[in-house]
């Protein structure tokens, strides 16, 4: 039943977007029609050069991760000749640290996603309703946060988390990370929820639904796509963040993956063993790669929000 409600405006939204897409397609074709073969070849060349630039270091890293330390020093650096081995990967899996780092990063990502999605959904809903001046003012205040670079406030954050006894805890890190991601998440949420036609809210009101029912039966089902996007946005932000864990955690049991990788590479344990460092980095990318392949559309939008930060 709820699906009917969700389905109808969903189609409406799609209908709104469809002409824009068609226009986009047409315009691209129109643009290309007038182009010469030379300029198309030039575009191909430029695009390919960039592709090589993007892929070459990644390829190099993957190749090195399949080398033994001895092969790393002697074998061809760019071709898979001279023998490959899985020893670096088994070394990574055998080490106690990496498992903890992965688990911490996963916990951090999940916790941050939950906090950011739930809070931004509730906030976004109230903001698009424009029920009172309070929501309008709140929105302006929250948007202001997009402008504040997190680097500028790490010193106070360090001391505040200490005073609040949430320094060096995973949930403290979740709260700070979530707060830093909230402004963009609310912006994304508001921009999306605005697409829900006003008539739907009115219809809910006619049926006697209060704010809460409207929220659970209209906003949540309708907001699913943007929740996925914000989830990916905040998940990426949490999984990849370096500065906040660097400053707000310290114990080995709370170390997250980016920090753990950096420590491996810069201190003693994996010194002289570049292949193991590279294998660790490759493994750290894999979960995101799987997500990317599975949820490309939402992922691209999530990245959009992510890179805003």
């Amino acid at each position, binding site marked *: *039943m709820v699906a009917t409600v969700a389905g*109808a405006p969903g189609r409406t939204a799609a209908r709104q977007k469809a002409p824009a897409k068609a*226009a*986009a*397609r047409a315009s*691209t074709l129109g643009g*290309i*029609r007038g*182009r010469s073969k030379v300029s198309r070849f030039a575009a*191909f060349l*430029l*695009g*390919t050069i*960039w592709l090589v*630039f*993007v*892929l*070459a*270091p990644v390829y*190099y890293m993957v190749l090195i991760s399949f080398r033994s330390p001895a092969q790393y020093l002697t074998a061809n*650096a760019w071709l898979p000749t001279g023998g490959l081995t899985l020893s670096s990967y088994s070394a990574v899996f055998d080490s106690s640290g990496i498992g903890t780092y992965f688990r911490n990063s996963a916990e951090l990502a999940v916790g941050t996603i939950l906090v950011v999605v739930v*809070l931004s959904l*509730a906030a976004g*809903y*109230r903001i698009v309703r424009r*029920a009172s001046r*309070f*929501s309008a003012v709140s929105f302006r205040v929250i*948007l202001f*946060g997009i*402008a504040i*670079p997190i*680097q*500028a*406030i*790490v*010193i*106070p954050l360090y001391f505040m988390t200490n005073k609040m006894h949430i320094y060096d805890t995973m949930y403290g890190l979740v*709260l700070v990370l979530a707060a*830093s991601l*909230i402004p963009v998440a609310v912006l994304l949420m508001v921009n999306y929820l605005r697409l829900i036609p006003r*008539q739907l809210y*009115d*219809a809910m*009101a*006619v049926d006697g639904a209060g704010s809460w*029912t409207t929220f659970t039966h209209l906003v949540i089902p309708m907001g699913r796509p943007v929740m996925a996007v914000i989830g990916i946005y905040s998940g990426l932000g949490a999984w*990849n963040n*370096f500065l906040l864990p660097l400053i707000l955690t310290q114990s080995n049991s709370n170390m997250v*993956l*980016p920090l753990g*990788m950096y420590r491996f590479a810069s201190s003693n344990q994996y010194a002289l063993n570049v292949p193991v*460092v*590279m294998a660790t*980095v490759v493994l750290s*990318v894999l979960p*995101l790669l799987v997500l*990317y392949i599975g949820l490309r559309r939402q992922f691209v939008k999530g990245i*959009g929000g992510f*890179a805003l930060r």
Partner: protein
Amino acid sequence: MVATPAVLHRSPVVGSRSAKTAARRRGFFADVVGLSPTLALYGAFIVVPTAFAVFLSFTHWNVDGPIRWAGFANWREFFSDPVSYHSLLVTLELAGLSWLAQTPVAMALGIFIAGTQRYRAIYATLYLLPLLMSTAGLSLMWEDVLFPQYGGLAWLGRHVHMAFLSQTWLGSPNLALYTIVVIIAWQFVPFHTLIFQAGRRAIASELYDAASVDGANVRQSFWHVTLPQLRYSIVTSSTLVLVGSLTYFDIIYILTQGGPGDSTRVLAMDMYNIGFNQTEFGYASAIATVLGAIGIVLAILLVRLSGFGSMEGTQEGIW
């Protein structure tokens, strides 16, 4: 509760004045309930720290002792210290170079992947790869690619007669900053490409048709149609590049620690060092406040110039 599509066509209920007031009161209550958790979190971990940072910039605080009022001493030091002056210069240089490296390339690539050829869609998918990597991960990757002895580039330099690749990319004061700029571009150009792709796709084909009727060639239609139409994308992307690079920290921290010498010591690095290493948190907060102010000024410019972020603003690049 069932709401059929039919309700879509009902007209909104017009209620009495008192009913409206009651509804408004309920709305306010719901606003408070819905927004409070967000405001509390945001207030506690963004607003309060921001105010605290500004306050600290007027104090002397060596971590270990009490906070002492310093008036404008830190600010005077900031504006007279050649070290912070140099850091400010490096920061601006990094931002300027990043803009030069990222925006034109991202625009070209964005237009490129806005095309409908199948291979371009595949390229577009692969272009996003850097955005999947954490900064720590990609820094370690580049560190190894650029390693002077056994790195990938050095190997090419030795074995494929491309000696110019065999540089001390991060270890030479003359090269390090440029190397960092290229690595940052590697990381962020994909994102800006998305902005330009969306912007290019939003240009109506009629404009190109009209241009070609007027006898415009490829270059002319780029200058007279594409470029002006992309102005919002350009403003959005440029501001994000500038804000991003002015506060950039992670890659520099991991790869050079601000060195060699002070050639890559940007303000954010300086702040980290003075705060967390020399434990002069008052002075470090003055630097932090400068960083914050730069971010805010640029963001306001962004909103003014592009309408981005406002309720009625353009949403290209995100949706």
